[in-house]
């Protein structure tokens, strides 16, 4: 065989390997994404059917969950609980996460800043059930004294405002919405912090120098002048973080615990993911159906937030 011919054979072999290899990578890549479609399809097909069977959309979104023997029901309390705890958790998450992110992103020369950054990295994908247990432990420890010294007197003072206030403020049970919101915020804080930090880190040096020069006080430089540069990333982080905590179940298991009824936020509180967790594992057909309906609602909320975040970003 001539050298040319042999070279040609090797080339052919390499081309075949190229196709096979790239094909394998493509297959694996697609395999990572296919389940997403399967799951979304499954949830919506069974979920929408369930919502219809259980009384239609409005009834589903406002009514009480079905007992094993009923034929209709809803996730009213769950939606309210999720809304309340997610909003609280997200507010706290952003309120603490943003300055924390500025700290670890901008003051990187400090040793403590690096310690804090390490802490944030550790906490960011920490098992969420552990975080829920932590809040539970603190709650158990603090509850009695908290109620005795703070919340009882407080609620007596503000009770003239009206009966409705006791839904929000008052002595806390072991399981309550605020513990749930606290757990959710602990999950969101590191997430917002990391994205804020990287948004500030990726500001180019000239821009940063200009901001410090024109901004006067450092506060102005960081938060006023550079606001535009980072706001897109931070808002995206806030949206995606909110979507993330709206779907969390484990941290709520021992903090909010769940509820079948509308109740005060100072007591056990329902949440949509908690209902899916509970109802899917019962042997009762109607409750399993409502779990699918709840999953469909939850998925819609999260997809909406995700799409809004992606379009803006």
């Amino acid at each position, binding site marked *: 065989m001539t050298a040319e011919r042999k*070279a040609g054979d*090797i080339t052919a072999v390499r081309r075949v390997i190229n196709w096979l290899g790239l094909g394998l990578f493509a297959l694996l890549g697609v395999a990572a994404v296919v389940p997403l479609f399967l799951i979304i399809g499954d949830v919506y097909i069974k979920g929408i059917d369930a919502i219809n069977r259980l009384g239609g959309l409005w009834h589903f979104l406002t009514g009480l969950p079905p007992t094993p023997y009923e034929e209709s029901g809803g996730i009213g309390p769950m939606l309210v609980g999720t809304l309340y705890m997610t909003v609280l958790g997200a507010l706290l998450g952003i309120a603490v996460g943003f300055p924390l992110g500025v700290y670890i992103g901008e003051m990187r020369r400090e040793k403590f800043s690096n310690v804090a950054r390490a802490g944030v990295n550790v906490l960011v994908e920490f098992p969420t059930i552990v975080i829920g247990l932590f809040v539970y432990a603190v709650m158990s420890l603090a509850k009695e004294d908290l109620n005795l010294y703070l919340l009882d007197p407080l609620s007596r003072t503000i009770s003239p405002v009206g009966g409705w206030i006791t839904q929000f403020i008052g002595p806390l049970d072991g399981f309550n919405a605020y513990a749930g919101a606290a757990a959710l915020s602990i999950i969101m804080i590191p997430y917002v912090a990391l994205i804020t930090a990287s948004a500030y880190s990726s500001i180019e040096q000239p821009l940063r120098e200009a901001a410090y020069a024109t901004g006067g006080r450092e506060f102005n430089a960081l938060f006023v002048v550079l606001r535009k540069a980072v706001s897109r990333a931070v808002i995206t982080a806030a949206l995606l973080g909110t979507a993330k905590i709206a779907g969390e179940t484990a941290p709520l298991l021992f903090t909010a615990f769940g509820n079948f009824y509308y109740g005060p936020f100072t007591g056990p509180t329902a949440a949509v993911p908690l209902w899916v967790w509970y109802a899917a594992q019962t042997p009762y057909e109607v409750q399993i159906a409502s779990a699918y309906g709840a999953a469909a609602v939850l998925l819609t909320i999260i997809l909406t937030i995700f799409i809004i975040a992606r379009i803006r970003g």
Partner: protein
Amino acid sequence: MAKVEFKDLRVSFGASPVITGVNLSIPDRSITALMGPSGSGKSTILRVLNRLIELYPEARVSGEVYLDGQNIFDMNVMELRRKVQMIFQIPNPIPNLSIFENVALGLKLNRLVRGRGELFERVKSALEKAQLWDEVKDRLRAPAGKLSGGQQQRLCVARALAFEPEVLLADEPTANLDPENTAKVEALFLELKKEMTIVLVTHYPPQAARISDYAAFLYKGQIVEWGPTRDVFTKPRHELTEKYVTGRLY
């Protein structure tokens, strides 16, 4: 027949044209210099010749390029790159691979050698030709990223020479080197031109005057003038050429 022929080459990146109709012949076993101010398209022409331009998805190429009479776009690109090798302006060894592996990479991928013994011999002779062997022979397994700038560039030269290529493309190879290393590289090219065709892009007319046999002056994507170096420098036909070679045009 010339070693390389460009016929009406046009290249644009997205909507911006970079090369607007180039016809050029590159003779064999000689050094042809491509000169011109920044942005005139010199590096682009080089990248067309080894089809590295295909790494830039926004690039559109039209026209024909022939290597020994064969259209390079009809050729298999791996075959082309076995014959046409390139040295870059900023040395680009693969930093996490060892010195030895950097030179050996092309040989192994293209199955150009059989057996470890032959591989070692090829790598050694390439490093010797690039005048790097003595400095690295005791640390062939050290990562390439640890070498100095001048050494890294000679490593890249060795990597290219390991192929025993027919054409060597050099994109401002001494722009980032000190005078001593620059002199080494220029001396090397003068040796190598006996075995291969060298196309040298240079930003610095005196370098072209020093070592090239043929020179082409490129301005805004067009060849303004081309011919034997001595003619281009001493009897330029175009005013632009004269301005450039005397340093009044950047």
